[in-house]
C-alpha cells in the first residue's frame, strides 16, 4: 500500500500523529479482542493506521477514537473473510455460536446477592475473549475502551438501541461464565 496520498502536507501528518498515535494502545487492545491472535492484531493495527492516515481528510471529528475503531473493524472484517476463505478453522465463531451448546448454562439462576469471585486480569481476558460476536465487540468497546453508547453506535454502525441490548446480553453471558467456571483451566 503505497503511501502516496493527498496528505503529503507535513502539517496534516503532524496533526494525524498528534491525534491518532496516542490511541495506539486502545486500537491494539480492540484488535487483540476481535482477532484473538497477536500477530494478526499487529498487522490489522498497522493497516488501520495507514488507512486512517490515507483517509484523514475525511475525518470530521469530534472524537477520533470511534473513527479509528470503525476503520479497524473494517480491517478485521476483511481478515475474517480471508480466514473463512482459507478454510482454516473458523476463528470468528459468530455464526456458529448460536448452534453450539453453550459452554456455560446461561439460564442458570445465580443465587441472589452472590458475590463474584475476584479474578485476575488474564482470567477475565479469557472470559471476555470467549464471548461470541457481536457481544464481545460491544462489551470491549464499552468496558475496556471506554466508549459512550453513542460512540459505540458510531464505531459499529448500529443504532444506540442495538448497542444497549447487545451490552446487556454480553454482560449476562459474561457474568454467567464468571459464576459458572470454577478455577481458570488454563
Amino acid at each position, binding site marked *: 500500500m503505497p503511501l502516496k496520498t493527498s496528505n503529503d502536507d507535513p502539517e496534516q501528518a503532524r496533526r494525524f500523529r498528534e491525534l491518532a498515535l496516542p490511541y495506539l494502545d486502545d486500537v491494539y487492545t480492540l484488535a487483540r479482542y476481535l482477532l484473538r491472535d497477536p500477530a494478526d492484531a499487529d498487522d490489522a493495527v*498497522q493497516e488501520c493506521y495507514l488507512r486512517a492516515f490515507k483517509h484523514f481528510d475525511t475525518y470530521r471529528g469530534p472524537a477520533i477514537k470511534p473513527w479509528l475503531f470503525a476503520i479497524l473493524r473494517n480491517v478485521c472484517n476483511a481478515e475474517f473473510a480471508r480466514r473463512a476463505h482459507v478454510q482454516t478453522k473458523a476463528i470468528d465463531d459468530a455464526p456458529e455460536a448460536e448452534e453450539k451448546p453453550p459452554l456455560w448454562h446461561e439460564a442458570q439462576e445465580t443465587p441472589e446477592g452472590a458475590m463474584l469471585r475476584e479474578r485476575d*486480569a488474564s482470567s477475565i481476558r479469557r472470559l471476555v475473549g470467549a464471548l461470541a460476536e457481536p457481544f464481545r465487540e460491544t462489551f470491549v468497546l464499552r468496558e475496556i475502551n471506554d466508549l459512550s453508547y453513542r460512540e459505540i453506535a458510531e464505531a459499529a454502525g448500529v443504532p444506540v438501541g442495538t448497542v*444497549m441490548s447487545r451490552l*446487556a446480553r454480553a*454482560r449476562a453471558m*459474561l457474568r454467567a461464565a464468571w459464576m459458572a467456571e470454577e478455577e481458570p483451566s488454563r
Partner: protein
Amino acid sequence: MTCDDAEILLHALVDGELDAGHTSEVEAHVATCPRCTAELTAIRQMHDAIARADLKFSAPPLLRRRIEAALPQPQKAAPSRRFVLKGFAMGSAVSALAATGLVAIVLSNDDQQRIEAEIVSAHLRSLQAGHLTDVISTDQHTVKPWFNGKLDVSPPVIDLTAQGFTLIGGRLDYVDARAIGAVVYKRRQHVINLFVAQTADTGQHAAKTDTIQGFNIRRWGEGGMKFWAVSDIGVDELNEFGAKFEATMRANKEG
C-alpha cells in the same frame, strides 16, 4: 415502569448514560423491586471488578515503531524517509523487516528530536482523563518506592511543594519503546511531567530548552540519568522548576 422496561436501562444507569428523567424513573422502580435491586447490584459488581482489572493490551514497541516509520515525518521530509516508505509500499513481511533496519538508520539522525516529540506525545497522553498518574500521592516516600521493580532506574522523587511545585504522583510511560518513569507535578492548574530515563553517560549536562507543539521542554542529564521536564507553563517557570529540582537533588546527595 415494569421490570422488562427497567432491565436494559439498569445497564445505562450503571454506565452513566441515562438522562436525569430516566434516572429517577429507574431508581424509583429499583427502590420498590427486589429483583431489579439484585440485578443492579450484580451489574455494578461486575462493572467494578472489570474496572479494577487492567484488561487493556499495550501495543508492542516494534509495532509502534513500524507505524511511526510508515507515517510521513512531521518535520521536513527527508529523501531517506521516502526510501523507507517505499520499503513499506511492498507490504510483504520481508520488506517490513528490511525497512525496520532502514528505520534504525534514519532515526539515529534525529534521535534527539524524535525522542522529544515522543516526550511531548507522552505528556499529551497523560493529560487525557485518567492517564495522569498510576500512583497518586503528594508524599515522595510513597511515590519513590512505587517505581521499584518497574524500571531500570530509580527516579529521584523530590517534594517541591514549598517551592511552589506540588508533587501529585508518578506514572510509568513509554518513550522510545522503553518504559520510562514520569513524576508528575502541578503548578497552579498546569501539569508538569518530569520524565526520567537511564543513560550510560554519567556526566553532567547543562539544561537546554526547546518548544515543541507549544509545549516547553527542559532537558538535562546528571548522575547517569536523563531528565525531561514538559509542561505548558512558560519557559521561565519551567527553568525555575528544573533549577530547583537539580539543586535539591544535589543537596540530597551531599546531605
